[in-house]
């Protein structure tokens, strides 16, 4: 996803940071530049959390404070040098970031906002209370001047260090954004259900976002302590947390240039507003309100939105060659693609309702197996058990004799089960090809550091991923829409995109949950061909469907569910004439109804 603007933009930033100090006519303006670099580092990290993972932190000042105090105390008490202080500050803040991420397992939205607010206030008050360590309200003074390899860092030298660090943070956060980690964060924030169904560990992804936001805030905190040589609790209040969040939102959450611009504006704005004297605070509030009204997506978010609306993007930026669908759906590491799927004695109750009662079924390797039944028969419940979203009270689900029942959805997905959703669950704000690339996610193996620096396996695997995605798009006939946002696709195409995303994971078993619902006759014919083709590639297909013609046409075998019980399982022609199946669908006299309640043949 290397945009053609990336390299010039990086160069431009380096030139900007290089020229900036020469415009400084006094100590004070140089100090403002340095404050800008520090705030920008906080904003870039927070941008990952807010813009990509979609989480809110109103406690960023607390993490900033943790870094500042860790660095200051190490340097004053233990005589630690600059580098050690920086590393320690990042580690401590990062650790607390990981702790803050833990509540996101259960709490979101305003609840999470409260937790982060509380965290910030706790840090502030612990600093005030713990006099012996932090100096209480008077703070830590006489922090030694920083030096690097025994070169004292004062004035322009310290600025140079800050500028280099800022540049590194820009590159690293930008690279992470444009890697599988950034995509995973966007995916989790847009549809957690879908993200887990393609094998993403949502908690892990959010924790990574929190750790990045926290350790950058910690880094900035240490740099701030060494800039001021004095810190007190006054610099780390709730209002500072708001300002950090504002930097990200003002510039445009999710954009690197936006975070930089937001930090720049909010560093200099108070300086200009000082001329207004009494009206300073009022003007600050007014400006904030006006920005939210005029540019609700932030400066660069709004610009990007306008550009996207008026500039037509090329439908396919990369010429794709060479990848055949057969190779794409075969996982090189996984070996054989098809597998035997067995559900054995599944029972699940919701309150007093037994949704599934000792339901058993089997899908042979490469088979197209249809699961049918009247509304409320338990079909979707079965799909949700197989994919790990529900835990059955009894029974086993296994793929090639590996038990899956009770595993988390992302682990089930990683062992080779892919699915589509009855009411499509796409990542609406991402492009069509990005949706498919997220499906490919678990086949990528490069790590965070490789992504951050674009080294090692990163380049090669990203190209493979993009090519595979393009091949899958051409398989489902969506090549012309490669760079459209998924939510703009009509319903039928969204269904096909879901199939492409599911196939990108190279599944052994593909579950299609009512793929024909809402499709036109012509689209159903295409779906028919597509399902046959998928099975011919050796992937077992479990098709949950109402559309009788489609089932009779493609299915090798059919299993019928009624009131949570499997009442028949056989080839389509026999199922068609099975009296119990006819009864389940059309009903019969009450006298014979009781007899049909027994277990399956």
């Amino acid at each position, binding site marked *: 996803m290397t945009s053609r603007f990336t390299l010039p933009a990086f160069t431009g930033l380096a030139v900007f940071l290089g020229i900036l100090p020469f415009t400084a006519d006094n100590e004070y303006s140089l100090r403002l530049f340095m404050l800008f670099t520090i705030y920008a580092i906080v904003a870039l990290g927070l941008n990952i959390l807010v813009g990509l993972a979609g989480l809110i932190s109103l406690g960023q000042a607390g993490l900033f404070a943790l870094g500042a105090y860790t660095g200051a105390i190490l340097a004053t008490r233990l005589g630690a040098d600059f580098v050690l202080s920086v590393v320690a500050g990042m580690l401590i803040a990062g650790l607390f970031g990981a702790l803050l991420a833990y509540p996101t397992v259960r709490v979101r939205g305003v609840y999470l906002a409260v937790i982060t607010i509380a965290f910030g206030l706790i840090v502030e008050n612990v600093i005030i209370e713990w006099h012996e360590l932090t100096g209480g309200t008077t703070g830590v003074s006489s922090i030694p001047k920083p030096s690097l390899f025994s070169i004292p860092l004062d004035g322009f030298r310290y600025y140079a260090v800050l500028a280099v660090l800022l540049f590194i943070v820009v590159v690293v956060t930008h690279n992470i954004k444009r890697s599988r980690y950034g995509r995973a964060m966007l995916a989790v924030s847009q549809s957690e259900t879908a993200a887990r169904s393609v094998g993403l560990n949502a908690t892990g992804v959010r924790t990574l976002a929190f750790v990045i936001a926290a350790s950058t805030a910690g880094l900035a905190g240490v740099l701030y302590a060494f800039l001021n040589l004095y810190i007190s609790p006054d610099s780390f209040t709730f209002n500072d947390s708001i300002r950090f969040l504002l930097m990200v939102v003002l510039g445009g959450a999710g954009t690197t240039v936006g975070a930089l611009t937001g930090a720049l504006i909010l560093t200099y704005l108070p300086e200009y507003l000082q001329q207004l004297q009494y009206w300073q605070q*009022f003007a600050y509030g007014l400006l904030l309100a006006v920005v939210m009204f005029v540019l609700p997506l932030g400066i660069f978010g709004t610009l990007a939105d306008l550009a996207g609306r008026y500039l037509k993007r090329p439908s396919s930026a990369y010429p794709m060659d060479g990848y055949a669908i057969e190779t794409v759906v075969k996982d090189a590491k996984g070996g054989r693609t098809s597998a035997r799927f067995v559900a054995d004695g599944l029972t699940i109750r919701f309150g007093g309702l037994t949704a599934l009662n000792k339901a058993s079924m089997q899908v042979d390797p490469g088979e197209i197996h249809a699961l049918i039944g009247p509304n409320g028969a338990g079909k979707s419940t079965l799909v949700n058990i197989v994919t790990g979203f529900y835990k059955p009270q009894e029974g086993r689900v296994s793929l090639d004799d590996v038990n899956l029942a009770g595993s988390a959805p992302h682990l089930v997905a990683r062992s080779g089960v892919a699915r589509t959703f009855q009411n499509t669950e796409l990542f609406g704000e991402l492009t069509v090809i990005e949706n498919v690339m997220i499906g490919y996610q678990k086949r990528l193996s490069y790590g965070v550091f490789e992504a951050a620096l674009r080294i090692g396996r990163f380049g090669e695997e990203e190209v493979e991923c993009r090519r595979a995605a393009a091949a899958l798009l051409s398989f489902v006939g969506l090549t012309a829409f490669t760079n459209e946002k998924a939510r703009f696709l009509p319903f039928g195409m969204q269904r096909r995109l879901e199939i492409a995303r599911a196939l990108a994971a190279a599944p052994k078993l593909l579950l299609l949950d009512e793929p024909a619902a809402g499709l036109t006759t012509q689209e159903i014919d295409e779906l028919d061909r597509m399902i046959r083709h998928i099975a011919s590639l050796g992937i077992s297909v479990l098709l949950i469907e109402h559309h009788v013609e489609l089932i009779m046409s493609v299915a090798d075998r059919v299993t019928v569910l009624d009131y949570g019980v499997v009442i028949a399982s056989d080839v389509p022609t026999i199922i068609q004439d099975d009296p119990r199946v006819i009864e389940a669908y059309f009903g019969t006299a009450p006298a014979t109804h009781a007899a049909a309640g027994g277990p399956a043949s």
Partner: protein
Amino acid sequence: MQSIIQYVLSGFAIGGCYALVALGFHIMWSTARAVNFAHGDTLMLGAVLTIMAVDQGAPLPAAIAGAIAASCLFGVLLERFAVRPFAKTASSISWMLTTIAIGIMLEALVTMEFGGFSRALPSPGVERAISVLGAGVYPQELLIPVIAVVAMAGLGWMRRYTLIGRAMQAVSFDRNAAALMGINVHRMFAFSFGLAAALGGAAGILIAPITQASASMGLTLGLKGFAVAIIGGITSTPGVVIAGLGFGVMEKFVEGYISTAAREIVGFSLTIVVLLVFPQGLFGKREVSKV
């Protein structure tokens, strides 16, 4: 023993104030699934306007009524201009920031008009302390929790027996279905923000004689009121009141036995722990959150 009673009674006083603030958050959230992050500033507005009106020679009851009416109007306007335009967006960051922005502006205006210092609001409730089981309290302090409980009961009554209350309930269950039944959803949003702001203004007027009134008094009270609402379960009316009173008492004990800074540490740590154990708050119901 005497100090324990003292802590409990003064705890109920400040706790009653938290409960009133939290009730406001509860009302706004139930109806609009959004809150006013400047809600603390409505407390400040109520208290400061009352003092300014009394300065101008207005009788206290008239000053109070006027201040509550002004707070209510503030709430309605804020909903219309800072919350409603962003209610449709998927993320809650927008209305969080716009309401915070309005709060910053209000605080700046009040600082200019009222001055940056703190003043006490004269009230007949704090002229003489009375002795309850050996603990000295002002009648005002006893009044606050009573008013909080009355407000809670009144809200319950309104929801059950009045047309507008039932309409609010309908909107909180399903705003689209409510709109299809002919309920003006936007008017319900405005009403609930106005009602919440009126309760907030009243809470400010009640607490100002005991603590002090200043332009910056709203921040902490607002944050704690919000924390209390979340602890109690923002969807539960009795929940937020119980949590408010409990939180106030807990604060007084920590303050009495340890220190003021420890009060904040313990209070906010408790908030986090409660949310970890009960993600919907102590008395809240499960709901799908939209962020």
